């Protein structure tokens, strides 16, 4: 810890919501010229802490100090006047206004009472060039990529505040190059002496960018440490309070599939996707690896009848079935956890219980209604089995965390007693704890005899639960790995179609 005075300091912060203590005497300090990562599972209290630091919430106890002086923030705007700016995951700028208008909104230079457009554009261009952006500032913001929009948002926040910059999951919707570009900007700001607070789900990004890390768990601070003294396992252990390394490729999997063929796809095709053959056995997980746009999701949608196939045959337990829409797929015993949970998965306003029983109810038809007792029993059973954490099952599912929502959708499909389950990126946007739990659940379902088809872009995750891995490239299944040949390196090689160059250090 440096002796120098922190720019922004929180001492003994308490925050209570109803009966729930979200923060319990948490200390936090951000110094000038550092990137300070804030980590914790969902529900650990990091968003609450951030909201207190930026003024969106008022603490119930403790104090905030800015450069040693106590401050009381009424709202984020008030925080901004003290030099504390925030950039959120979803850029909250005006997509249909020009870049320069977005940068200067609310403080446009005027000339004779009129907005001086020329001066705005010139100032915006000058400002963005300092961030290495050379774009047409008169164009609408929405014409640029999310990465550029993020940088514009950062530029605006820094311009308005200039002491502390809070980045709340800024990289969630960026690709690898865009992340690097954003990080370059952040490093530039760090060199200028800003204190940067960085929140993310990606541990590798924390190690890449941050100098120190503060870890929260269940509303308490676990530690604040310099990152060069830590490795990933240390961080995960502190976040979870237990060791949750994925079981790497358990030997049971190398024995190959356990049971008979349950689902078989023959020559299934659709425009823009090469025909494929695939059979999935009882007690088998077929993992799918491939880059975004390789056709992974398209295969899953075709299997489930979300998109109709141009040709091909599907058999379940040896009997041919017709699947031209999801209802038919459900009737055949298929389940599908879609990639976009919010859009295609959850019914936000419906209760946890209704979200769990809905697929079974749809399968039973309109007139065989599950009565309330059945619903309570079913929801309770699967919530227990998957450890869905909800205060009660009558609360709207939208109030749950992402990980718990994902488990609700999983429970929905387990409730129909499926033959075949398709999971598209089941761990995306989920905190580390729930992530490991979902991986364990997939393994357990396999052991219980389910046939699964799991798409994931995390290689070591696919390796951890797959008996067999299908590699996709350019909308085609290009390779199949099983047994001992399953390893992250081999998958990278198959995806790239070349010998491996440098592979990232695998997570422990």
């Amino acid at each position: 810890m440096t002796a120098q005075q922190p720019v922004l300091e929180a001492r003994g912060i308490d925050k209570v919501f109803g009966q729930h203590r979200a923060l319990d005497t948490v200390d936090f300090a951000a110094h000038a010229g550092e990137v300070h990562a804030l980590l914790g599972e969902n529900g650990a209290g990091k968003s609450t802490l951030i909201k207190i630091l930026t003024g969106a919430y008022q603490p119930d106890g403790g104090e905030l100090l800015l450069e040693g002086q106590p401050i009381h923030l009424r709202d984020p705007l008030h925080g901004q006047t003290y030099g504390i700016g925030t950039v959120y995951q979803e850029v909250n700028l005006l997509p249909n206004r020009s870049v320069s208008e977005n940068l200067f909104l609310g403080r446009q230079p005027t000339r004779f009472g009129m907005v001086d457009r020329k001066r705005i554009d010139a100032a915006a261009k000058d400002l963005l060039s300092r961030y290495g952006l050379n774009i047409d500032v008169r164009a609408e913001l929405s014409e640029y990529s999310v990465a550029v929009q993020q940088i514009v948002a950062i530029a605006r926040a820094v311009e308005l505040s200039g002491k502390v910059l809070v980045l709340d999951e800024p990289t969630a919707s960026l690709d690898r190059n865009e992340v690097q570009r954003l990080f370059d900007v952040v490093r530039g700001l760090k060199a200028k002496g800003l204190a940067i607070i960085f929140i993310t789900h990606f541990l590798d990004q924390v190690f890449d960018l941050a100098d120190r890390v503060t870890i929260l768990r269940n509303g308490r601070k676990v530690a604040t440490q310099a990152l060069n003294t830590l490795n990933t396992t240390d961080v995960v252990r502190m976040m979870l309070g237990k060791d949750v390394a994925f079981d790497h490729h358990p030997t049971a999997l190398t024995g190959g599939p356990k049971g008979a063929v349950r689902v078989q796809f023959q020559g299934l095709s659709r425009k823009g996707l090469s025909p494929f053959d695939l059979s999935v056995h009882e007690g088998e997980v077929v993992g799918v690896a491939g880059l975004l746009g390789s056709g992974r999701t398209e295969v899953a949608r075709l299997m489930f009848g979300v998109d109709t196939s141009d040709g091909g045959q599907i058999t379940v337990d040896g009997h041919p079935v017709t699947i031209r829409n999801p209802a038919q797929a459900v009737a055949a015993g298929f389940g599908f956890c879609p990639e976009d949970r919010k859009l295609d998965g959850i019914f936000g306003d419906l209760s946890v219980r209704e979200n769990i029983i809905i697929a079974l109810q749809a399968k039973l038809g309109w007139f065989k209604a599950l009565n309330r007792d059945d619903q309570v029993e079913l929801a309770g059973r699967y919530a227990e089995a998957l450890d869905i954490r909800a205060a009660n099952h009558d609360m709207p599912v939208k109030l749950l965390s992402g990980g718990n929502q994902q488990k609700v959708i999983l429970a929905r499909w387990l409730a129909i007693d499926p033959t075949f389950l398709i999971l598209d990126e089941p761990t995306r946007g989920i905190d580390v704890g729930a992530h490991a739990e979902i991986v364990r659940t997939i393994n357990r379902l396999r052991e219980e005899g389910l046939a699964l088809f799991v798409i994931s872009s995390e290689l070591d995750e696919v390796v951890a639960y797959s008996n067999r891995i299908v590699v996709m490239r350019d909308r085609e299944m290009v390779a199949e790995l099983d047994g001992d040949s399953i390893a992250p390196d081999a998958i990278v090689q198959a995806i790239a179609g070349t010998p491996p160059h440098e592979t990232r250090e695998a997570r422990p």
Partner: protein
Amino acid sequence: MTRPTVDLRPTQPPLPRPRPLAHFFTRPQVIALAAVLLVNWLLFPGFFTVTWQDGRFFGSLIDVLNRGAPVAILAIGMTMVIATKGVDLSVGAVMAISGATAATLVTNGIPAPVAVLAALGTGLLCGFWNGILVTVLEIQPIIATLVLMVAGRGLAQLITEGYIVTFSDPLLIFIGTGSFLGLPMPVIIAAVLMILATLIVRRTALGLLIEAVGVNRSAARFAGLSANALLLIVYTFAGFCAAISGLIVAGDIRGADANNAGLWLELDAILAVVIGGTSLMGGRFSIPMAVLGAMIIQAMNTGILISGFSPEFNLVVKSAVIIVILVLQSPLSSRLFRRLPGAQK
């Protein structure tokens, strides 16, 4: 083959069932209705007086129920349409079509029961048409039903050949003005329809599935729901309700007026549904609450009429009361009243 099983451990104890009756009297709609009735009573002390005469009840309160019935019946169908995140603007025009069909048929010597069935059939057909536009052609509901809202009055005029068709058929007149168990027929019809519709949607899975489609149509598809079949049913049922209302209104005036029957009533029906707490964003719905909403609207209409204010006041007062009810239902007021514990993300 083995079935995937999950641990069958005992579940958490089920929560106590919600107690509808205790909640009922604290709902903003019920309070609003009570307030409107109270104001009516203050303006007109005889408001709650109900007398028995010629084998039926008479009084202002009965009048509110009777006059409110057509909109209440529309609201029953409209509730479900709105629950699917849709809207049906055509119900007023469908009322005119239904009335015109029944009146024209009886004046041409067709037996009244057949005419009634034919009118109900045209209502079903109109609703089905809306459903096809919304599902197969995937037109936005507000536009899809606007087609029939505009064209429907033309159709009704074609049926009546531009005249106001008057009739003296006892069955049709009975539907509009008769009484059963001392209560006006429209009230009986609305009550029976409300109870039947509520039982059907709540005893079967239809209610939940309709709500699911309204909350997230895409997720409904992924969960294996046949959203299109549900939408077809819902729009067809709205058309059916409109046909019943059309028969009542025609029977009441003993004639079919293609230009004015049900004019603007679709807006009252939508209003009744919204007052009843069903969101225009779809999802949770309550048929009895929508009927209550229709009664609030009618109680205001009646109150203004009997108090001797000029009818122009009606619109202003109505909008003021509606604003109050909507404010009471808004998230803002629930925050103010109940300081909900903030949920942490």
